[in-house]
């Protein structure tokens, strides 16, 4: 707890050397840690290599090397056009769920985290207890009753069934609360108020810019959660036209097991690759922001 008094600016400066003097690089440590690196990357490399294979090569050639044909572009074209281009439809659905769900969840978490960090109000302790307790509530335990509720409201098999439950991220609220506590000096808010700014304007013009790294961090986590969501759509959706990518891929994969179904493992692998590429790009692109957000607020005691 004592460490929370550390100023975020100091925590964020990336060049800080922890041990006095420059630590000597260790080849041995690099190699030992390299085992975990290889473990992390091998399945991704496997996926990349196998997305270039024809279905025949997939089963007959060594998994970690290229097959006799280079079918990457052919697989790509087939994955995008299979079944009247249903994959693109799934991609569009996923984007919709991410923009509305993760975007909305981030907005609600920022507003709520700011409220919990910077204001005293009646019932605040109760809110804390309930929302933090909710982190421990199994998402899957909720999904089934939510389905019955939504079903009676005729919301199942519509995008709302995915978007509305995605709007709440207790972990996002927690991250935002601990970030806002550090990042906004009370004096600054007072100064804005003395100048006659309304609460909304103080939030919008003074506080929101300071919350940016935390916001990006929460956005990243809610984005991953929504993009990768499987259980909720599995329960809520029957119509493949509303499927997100995860559900669609699983349908492609299980197609081989159904009677008369065509095995399309080559398309499953290409589709998997296409599903993870956007998130990986987002990670690399935003990493400077969200990592500082995580260190400055996030999880430190």
């Amino acid at each position, binding site marked *: 707890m004592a460490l929370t008094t550390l100023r975020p600016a*100091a925590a964020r400066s990336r060049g800080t050397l922890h041990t006095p003097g420059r630590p000597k690089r260790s080849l041995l440590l690099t190699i030992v840690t390299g085992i*975990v690196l290889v473990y992390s990357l091998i399945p991704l490399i496997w996926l990349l290599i196998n997305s270039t294979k024809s279905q025949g090569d997939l089963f007959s050639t060594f998994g970690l090397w290229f097959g006799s044909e280079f079918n990457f572009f052919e697989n790509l074209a087939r994955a995008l056009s299979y079944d009247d281009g249903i994959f693109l439809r799934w991609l569009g659905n996923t984007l919709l769920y991410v923009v509305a769900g993760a975007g909305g969840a981030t907005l609600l978490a920022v507003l709520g985290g700011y409220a919990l960090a910077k204001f005293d109000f009646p019932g605040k302790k109760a809110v804390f207890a309930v929302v933090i307790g909710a*982190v421990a509530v199994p998402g899957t335990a909720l999904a*089934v*009753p939510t389905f019955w509720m939504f079903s009676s409201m005729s919301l199942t098999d519509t995008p709302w069934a995915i978007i509305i439950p995605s709007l709440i991220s207790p972990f996002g609220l927690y991250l935002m609360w601990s970030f806002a506590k550090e990042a906004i000096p009370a004096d600054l808010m*007072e100064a804005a108020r003395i100048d006659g700014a309304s609460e909304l304007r103080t939030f919008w013009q003074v506080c929101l810019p300071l919350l940016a790294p935390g916001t990006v961090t929460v956005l990243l986590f809610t984005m991953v959660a929504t993009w990768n969501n499987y259980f909720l759509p599995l*329960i809520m959706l029957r119509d493949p036209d509303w499927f997100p990518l995860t559900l669609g891929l699983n349908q492609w994969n299980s197609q081989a097991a159904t009677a008369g179904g065509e095995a399309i493992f080559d398309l499953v692998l290409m589709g998997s690759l296409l599903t993870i590429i956007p998130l990986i790009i987002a990670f690399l692109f935003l990493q400077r922001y969200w990592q500082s957000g995580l260190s400055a607020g996030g999880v430190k005691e």
Partner: protein
Amino acid sequence: MTNTITSPPARAPRTPHSARTTPAPRRQRSFASRARWTGWGFLAPFMAVFLLVFIAPIAYSIYLSLFHTQLVGGTSFVGFDNYLRAFSDPVFWGGLLRVSLFLAIQVPIMLGISLLVALAVDSGRLYGSDFFRISVFLPYAVPAVVASLMWGFMYGTRFGLVGQINEFFGWSIPDLLGPQIILASIGNIVTWEFVGYNMLIFYAALRVIPSSLYEAAAIDGAGQWRVIGSIKIPAIRGALVVATIFSIIGSFQLFNEPSILQALAPNSITSAYTPNLYAYSLSFAGQQQNYSATVAIVMGVITMVIAYAVQLRGMRKEA
């Protein structure tokens, strides 16, 4: 979650006008009463949706768990009968035992690897440490569906990587999708997915340790291991507890990986392999909504009790 979460903020936010002593009393009072509720204005949107997608389904679940629906005879109030049934249901306990075993083995391995990598990256002694940090985190971007499909393909003894390795080296790695080993195979997938995520949580916590502590340790002549044991680990205890609790919740909620592997290994993974799969199949295949709601509630309560116990224990050690 940690004491920081459950207890009120350490530094209570100052009431907005506390520094202002001059304004007329009346104006100050009206501002104060307005400020008392301002926080709710910002929190209201979250709480409104929260009520709809958290509180209402939980309440509805509890309500459902008290009834029993039969094809003939309709719905009747049965009190705690469903709970009694759950407590003497060997299928439910079998699933619970399985996820407990999973938890006891997978979580320590995963968190141990995460901690070692975080310490290694933080030490500044790695060549290309940025590359390490980002690469190990990448699997977190991979959906459970894709991760399970990839690993499922690789596990296959006939067509997969394991089969090819067996053939090439003349080894006999057993069938990783067989009923004896599949739990470990699932553990490997989950470990792969979340090592980087936990590593990042630990790394973020390590980054905010004030360098004055390290300077003091250097003056005292403490070595690397001493610094790790006496400064780094105690300083990130909170992050360790958070990660442990999230992992416990994840283990008890195990669903995606076994559900997807089921297509590849139907003989190894039953429809009640984990309590969650059980609740799902009761509800959607078995048409037993009431009992399914009961199973979900019992699991939720068990999860919360254990998460709370870990939090208490983790935080007591700190004192």
